[in-house]
Every structure is written in C-alpha cells, then in structure tokens.
C-alpha cells in the first residue's frame, strides 16, 4: 500500500508541517493491517510505539476488575499509544479493532532516528501530541474540579442514584482518554 506524503499530511495535518516531513515520516513508519476483533493494545502492558490510524476504526475501553468503561472510538486521522511513545511505560487503556484497520507505526527506534536525523520533525510531533494531551487534561481537570466540594455527588450517593455516580467516573475516563470522533 503506497501512501502519498500529501495525503498523509492532509490526514495528520497537526503532526507534520510539509510534504517532505510527511515523506520522511512515511519512510520510518511500518504499516500494519489488523483484523476486526484483534486487540491492538492491552491495558497496563508496556508500550513505546505510536500508532497512526490511517484507515478503519478502533475503540478504547478501561478495565478495572469486572468493570469495563467504554471511552470512545478512534477514527482515521487520530492516533493511540502516545503516552508510551513520549515516555515508554504502561498503557492506560485497551484498544480494540472494530473494523479492519491500517496503522502506521513509529517504534522507539523510529523515535531515536527522528531525534538523531530530523529533530525538527520530532519537535512538531511532540508539540502536537502535547497540545492534545493538555487539552484532554484540561477537560479532565475541569470535570474533577467541578465536583470538588460539590454536594451534588454526595447527594447522589445518599440517594443511591448510582447512574449519576457512575457517570462521574465515565466522564473522567472519556475526557482523560480523549477519544475523538466517538
């Protein structure tokens, strides 16, 4: 499958500034086609790669014991795995393949290659990922702060209105993981 740099730049406009940057990125990514039903990322396992979704559809969910919270879908033009790409470590959520998908993957080796050869592309990438993370953190914090010292929550517990109770966690999970296009 051949992807034109101009098409890549159009789809991931925040992540690269020029067709030549896109061309370089396309040179260092590996293309993975994953089947519907596959689990791309398993929560809490080590990851250091960034996955751009070129085609298809992914979904994300959090698992804690038997509780599962769907946090939304990932559509073409978005990405997953950015936490581990920036700082290799455990993943924060599960990622399932909802439709056969084409992913463009930058591994840790790709990160190092960018750093050594094209640091300006890595800078653009880090800034775009940081902006996205900052916006998600802001939305998460606003939700967390909104309920700080707010009696609405305790009233819902006292009245055993668990729907309201659950939505507090659901909302934070969705804001934090920033599923877009859901």
């Amino acid at each position: 499958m051949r992807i034109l740099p101009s098409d890549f730049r159009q789809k991931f406009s925040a992540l690269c500034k020029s067709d030549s940057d896109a061309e370089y990125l396309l040179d260092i990514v590996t293309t993975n086609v994953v089947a519907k039903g596959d689990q791309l990322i398993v929560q809490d396992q080590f990851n250091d790669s960034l996955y751009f979704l070129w085609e298809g559809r992914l979904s994300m969910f959090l698992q804690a014991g038997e509780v599962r919270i769907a946090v939304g879908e990932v559509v073409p033009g978005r990405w997953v795995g950015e936490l581990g790409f920036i700082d290799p470590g455990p993943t924060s959520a599960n990622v399932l393949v909802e439709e056969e998908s084409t992913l463009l993957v930058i591994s840790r080796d790709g990160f190092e290659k960018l750093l050594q050869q094209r640091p300006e592309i890595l800078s653009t990438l880090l800034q775009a990922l940081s902006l996205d993370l900052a916006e998600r953190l802001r939305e998460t914090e606003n939700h967390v702060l909104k309920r700080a010292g707010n009696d609405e929550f305790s009233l819902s517990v006292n009245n055993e209105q668990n729907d309201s109770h659950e939505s507090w966690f659901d909302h934070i999970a969705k804001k934090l993981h920033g599923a877009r296009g859901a």
Partner: protein
Amino acid sequence: MTFLEFLSGVPVFSDFTQDEIHLLEQTMMVKDYPQGQVFAKEGKTGNSLHLVVEGEVVITRESKEHGIDILQRLAPGDLFGLVSLVDQGPRSASCTAATHTKVASLPRSAFELLYKSHDRLGYHFQHMIARQLVHDSRAYSQALKSSILAYDRNKFYEALQPREQYRGTERRGNDRRRGERRTGYRPRIF
C-alpha cells in the same frame, strides 16, 4: 545552595545537560513571595511557567458550598502553570503561596522560544513538557482505575496524593546523577 544547584537536582530536568541547566538558570526569574501571593487566578490565561523553589504553593478553586477548596499542595521541585501555556487556555484553578515561598518563573515569551526552537535544548524542553503531561495523565488514569471498582470518589482523590514527596535537593541531586526518576508522582492540577 545556589539556584543552579537546585535546578540540577530537580528530576523534571534530569535529561538536561549542565550547560542547558545553566541557560535555564539564566532565563528563569527567582523571586521571594509572601504568604497569600496569588500567582495565577482561576479563569485567567497563564503568562509564566512556575517552579516551586522553597515553601508551599496551593492550588485552589472557588466552591459555592465551601468558599475555597484546596485541591493540591505543591512542594519544591514541582512545576505549575504548564497546561495553560501549552494550550493557551484559561487557568482551571488559582495558585497561591501557602507559606513564604521562593518561586522561579519562566515568562511566556521565553517558554515559547524554547518550546518552538529546534535545537537540542528546545527538544529537551519539549520532551520534558510532554513527559509531564504524560505523567499527569497516567496519575489520573491510575486514580480512576483504583476507584472505579468501589465507585468511591474519595478513593479517586486519595489515589492522586503523592506516594513519595520531595525531601531535599541532596537526594534529588543523587537521583539525577544516578539517572533515576521519582517512583511516586505528584499530579498537579493547573
């Protein structure tokens, strides 16, 4: 201890070379502030990235029920004001000196210069910013997972508390020299 020595021991700058730390030291403005000094007001756009050098800064938010809620306590080595500088949005909460404090500030103009530059220092700075945001995201994610099962909001807030706190630059200096990172992480609410 000089400010340069302090900066050398701060874990968030562990990837910086001594020359880069030195440049940062020259760019940041260190000032003493009295208790009660407001660094950033909720709803206003942030103009600086701040680093607590001495004392304690509290992150607060006005609440209809309780007046002022203290949401987070920041100690020496903690940064604040980051999200507002990165996404250029208004502050989510206010930051106030809880004691007599010494705070180092990087003005927005210098922040943007570093944040947009393509040299080695610029990259280290950008990576440091990105890692801070990742750490905060992971801290929230962990708090969420530890509280979902019980559906207990208090557990969520408890999980956000630091497991390990900064106790002095000497240990921090050792951390850096040994290439270690703090295992505990203090999430900040900006």
